[in-house]
């Protein structure tokens, strides 16, 4: 088999975008490689789909975590380790930090990036849920200019995003959370370390006078692409948290999941598992509200 592909490397965003725009074949961007290298190993024929590989790890415009006027900017190249160690993110978006902590293993977290996690777009991508729950936007760069897309609209189906061949995911914009915002990430895997998420849940809420004024509940792995459980959110919003029936809410989450996926072979497992995560997240939220 011929693997006549080219390897490109640049530290300039403009040069990378130029290459993507000019190439007649597919140029595959690579950063940490923790997904791509596994895919190539599983199917070497995949390489025939690429005209080249573009190493983007040295492009500074894709790096770093910074607090701007009304949002936090997370570069696509930010590794899971950097997320875990970031004081800004620990303070403002703890559910994202916990999600990053739940990914793979130490060497995977050292290499894997948030941009890669999102672009790979697996149903079990741990950072997707928190990004959607925090209403993050993705900023896509191309020679034609910038395109801003809510992360919630980025993934069409598992492993398929709307990012064009000539575009690079440059960074995420996370709106600054309002005072008193609570967030929680829950996950079930087969074991603690290096476990693919079987099912996860992100809850982001703003509580005032024991009532959830704003609430976002986004499951992971349970449905093909991350989308909020809007019916569940509607039931909780505006209600006194102390009066919420956890069991009822958990059952409602199960119903919403089935509405999206239909009854599948895994439903008898996923329904109660998801219910447990909903109960856990809401119990945490109740506790926060009580201690307010």
């Amino acid at each position, binding site marked *: 088999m011929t693997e006549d592909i080219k390897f490109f490397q640049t530290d300039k965003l403009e040069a990378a975008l130029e290459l993507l725009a000019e190439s007649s074949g597919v140029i595959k961007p690579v950063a940490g*490689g923790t997904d791509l*290298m596994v895919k190539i*190993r599983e199917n070497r024929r995949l390489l025939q789909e690429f005209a080249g590989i573009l*190493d983007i790890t040295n492009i500074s415009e894709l790096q770093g975590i910074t607090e701007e006027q009304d949002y936090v900017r997370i570069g696509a190249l930010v590794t899971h380790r950097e997320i875990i160690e970031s004081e800004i993110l620990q303070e403002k978006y703890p559910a994202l930090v916990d999600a990053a902590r739940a990914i793979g*293993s130490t060497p995977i977290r050292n290499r894997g990036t948030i941009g890669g996690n999102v672009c790979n777009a697996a149903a079990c991508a741990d950072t997707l849920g928190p990004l959607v729950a925090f209403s993050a936007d993705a900023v896509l760069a191309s020679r034609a200019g910038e395109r801003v897309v809510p992360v919630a609209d980025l993934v069409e189906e598992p492993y398929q995003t709307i990012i064009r061949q000539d575009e690079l995911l440059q960074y995420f914009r996370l709106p600054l959370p309002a005072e008193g915002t609570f967030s929680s990430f829950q996950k079930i895997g087969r074991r603690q370390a*290096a476990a693919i998420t079987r099912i996860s849940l992100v809850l982001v809420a703003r509580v005032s006078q024991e009532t959830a004024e704003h609430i976002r509940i986004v499951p992971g792995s349970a449905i093909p692409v991350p989308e909020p459980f809007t019916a569940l959110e509607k039931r909780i919003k505006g209600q006194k948290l102390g009066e919420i029936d956890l069991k009822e809410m958990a059952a409602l989450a199960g119903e919403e999941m089935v509405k999206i996926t239909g009854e599948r072979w895994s439903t008898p497992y996923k329904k109660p598992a998801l219910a447990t995560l909903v109960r856990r997240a809401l119990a945490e939220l109740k506790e926060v509200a009580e201690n307010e």
Partner: protein
Amino acid sequence: MNKIKVKFIINGKEVSLLVKPTERLLDTLRDRLNLTGTKEGCGVGECGACTVMLDGQAVNSCLVLTAQVAGREVRTVEGLGKEDELDILQQAFIDHQAVQCGFCTPGMLMSARALLDDKSSPTREEIKTALDGNLCRCTGYQQIVEAVEAAAEAEGAD
């Protein structure tokens, strides 16, 4: 076949090689540089047998393209200790019977070295997290964690 010239530091020495675009760092180390201490287990980043340090951090060398390490610093198990002297970690692994079949040991050592270079007195929990990408099917991990704890203590006393 397109080849790329890559220059990087391996165990303190600069090397310059022509590599294929899809060549894995693991293969470069083992097959071209004869650094066979680094092992291949699963090849998909789950077992940690191929763990090396890249710019001070533990990484799975089976998931790194050699072309990507241009200008960077790679350290393998051969780069631990000195010619006639074991690294404190290696000695601690021996003293605590943390080696049985030995296949996971180079990877374990590199994950542990990356941890101790970053944190001089890690907690037991931090040690376990640092080793969470390294599988061992013999020891049951207890001796390995104890060895890393002992090494951290000995290094702190230095």
